[in-house]
């Protein structure tokens, strides 16, 4: 059955032919893939009556590069430049999950030095911080207010400066590797990172005024885009959309990994499960990330190796096995289902990104009744990320 036939069988008027009866009040609109309001390379096909969406379908496939298949044909070490591209805004989660899953299956996870684990925790939290800053500004930017995203993107760029100093790359880092990380922290890195954290701290009250005390944002976000609490388990929602329902779940606390159990942090929740609540959860998480990074810089050892002794990466084989590892990305639970077969290549890897449910199952069910002007804000607040859907 073709897509057109299938959609017609569900009652959709897909590309209606001449002679087919179409509701004259209905307008069909492709929102994306090239639209400033769309989150990345995806599109939402919506049917409108006036400016109200009657129904809609998410279309992905513009960005598929076959990463999972590529990894099946590569040596383990060759997969790092591939996985970081699964999420452009937050690549470090992918690097950590790839390393952790294969370390677990090979038994190397016990050899990862203490210092490397602290540095990995630092990188993961810096990654969450810069991605959350980007999305917080984006939430307001989609409503036509450009100042907040300018500020948050500037702050994000300061964090990316630190990434550049640490890894050599601003966006894609390829820094985490098997057994640890690629290099040690540069001299004086902590001081320069602290300068960035201070800048963020200083700017946050202004951002609060600009976003959360802004009457336009409040009117357009409170009570808009409400995700029903019943969907939490039914659909498997994670991350800020879940915590905005008031449900305090966080992989960092519930399934402790790296050095998070040694850190003191709060799981921020909201009330109302609307766009405002999700933005507020992210605003709180920025403060928490800043606090966590400071704790890491204070507690991490300054001496010791930053990587375990690695086997020959060209001949490294991993026994047959399968595992699922997870980490808390800024969008929610990111997971890697990893299967090895005793050879020198991955047998099967499947990436579970939070957008997989948020951008398709959740979004499609929320579209009916939504105003077309709120669609961008809804997508950003769900933090839909097409590359992790298509991989």
């Amino acid at each position, binding site marked *: 059955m073709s897509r057109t036939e299938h959609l017609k069988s569900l009652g959709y008027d897909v590309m209606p032919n001449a002679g087919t009866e179409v509701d004259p009040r209905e307008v069909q609109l492709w929102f994306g893939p090239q639209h400033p309001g769309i989150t990345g390379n995806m599109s939402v096909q919506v049917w409108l009556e006036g400016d109200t969406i009657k129904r809609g379908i998410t279309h992905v*496939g513009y960005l598929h590069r*076959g990463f999972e298949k590529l990894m099946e044909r590569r040596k383990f070490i060759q997969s790092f430049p591939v996985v970081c591209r699964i999420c452009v805004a937050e690549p470090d989660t992918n690097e950590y999950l790839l390393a952790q899953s294969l370390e677990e299956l090979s038994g190397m996870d016990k050899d990862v030095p203490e210092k490397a684990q602290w540095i990995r925790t630092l990188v993961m939290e810096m990654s969450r911080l810069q991605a959350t800053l980007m999305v917080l500004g984006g939430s307001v930017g989609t409503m036509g207010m450009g100042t907040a995203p300018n500020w948050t993107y500037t702050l994000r760029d300061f964090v990316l400066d630190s990434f550049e100093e640490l890894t050599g790359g601003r966006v894609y880092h390829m820094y985490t590797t098997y057994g640890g990380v690629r290099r040690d922290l540069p001299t004086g890195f902590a001081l320069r990172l602290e300068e960035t954290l201070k800048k963020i701290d200083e700017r946050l009250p202004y951002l609060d005024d600009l976003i959360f005390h802004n009457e336009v944002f409040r009117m357009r976000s409170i009570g808009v885009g409400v995700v029903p609490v019943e969907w939490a388990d039914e659909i498997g929602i994670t991350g800020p959309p879940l915590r905005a329902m008031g449900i305090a779940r966080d992989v960092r606390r519930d399934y402790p990994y790296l050095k998070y159990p040694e850190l003191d942090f*709060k799981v921020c*929740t909201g009330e109302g499960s609307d766009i405002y609540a999700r933005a507020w959860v992210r605003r709180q998480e920025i403060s928490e990330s800043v606090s966590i990074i400071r704790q890491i810089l204070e507690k991490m050892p300054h001496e010791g190796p930053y990587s375990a002794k690695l086997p020959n990466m060209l001949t490294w084989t991993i026994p047959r096995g399968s595992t699922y590892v997870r980490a808390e990305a800024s969008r929610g639970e990111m997971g890697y*289902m990893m299967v090895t077969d005793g050879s020198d290549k991955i047998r099967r890897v499947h990436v579970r990104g939070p957008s997989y449910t948020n951008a398709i*199952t959740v979004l499609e069910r929320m579209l009916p009744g939504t105003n077309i002007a709120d669609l961008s804000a809804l997508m950003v607040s769900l933090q839909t990320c097409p590359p992790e859907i298509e991989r």
Partner: protein
Amino acid sequence: MFEINDKTNAPARDHGTDILVRLQARFGALESHRQRQDLLRIEVGQDQLLPVLSWLKGDTPYVQLTHLTAVDWIEEDRFELIYLVTAPALFMTLMISISIDRVSATAESVFNLWLQAETYEQEINEMFGIDFPGSPRQGVPFILEGWDDMPPMRRDFDTVEYCKRTHPERPGRDHTDPRTYVGKKFGEKGYLT
């Protein structure tokens, strides 16, 4: 207006054994492997899949489908389907695995248990050619619109051959294969002599 929950101590994570005992009491002996404290792998028969998952969702705290994927074990002539079912209240995940015949490649849909399974099943249908009768989006392209070759995630799909066939080199173009290039530049041995 908003509540910020304090960090709480996670409960003791010994629920894997409990659920395995309950599963075996109800469904007979099942092969299992404790991968981690919070991850238990259980193999069930194809006909047991729906009863096991329905029971887990209805009568236990394992209410959330976290993940669903397939593995092609071509040398054993079977596909493996892996369902990750999580109990958020217990911080425990079950990796329920079934084997299905590689030729007939059909499995029961769990869409009626979890809504988001339709997307996972749609992707597996497209990438592996496994059918889930009753799942709403079977046969509807997910990522590969206009794809007319064998499902690409199958192990016998040859990516190199596919690329050569669908993207042939233009005549008259310089060869950029690294081995040929290095051979031309440095001699047949591939290094400066």
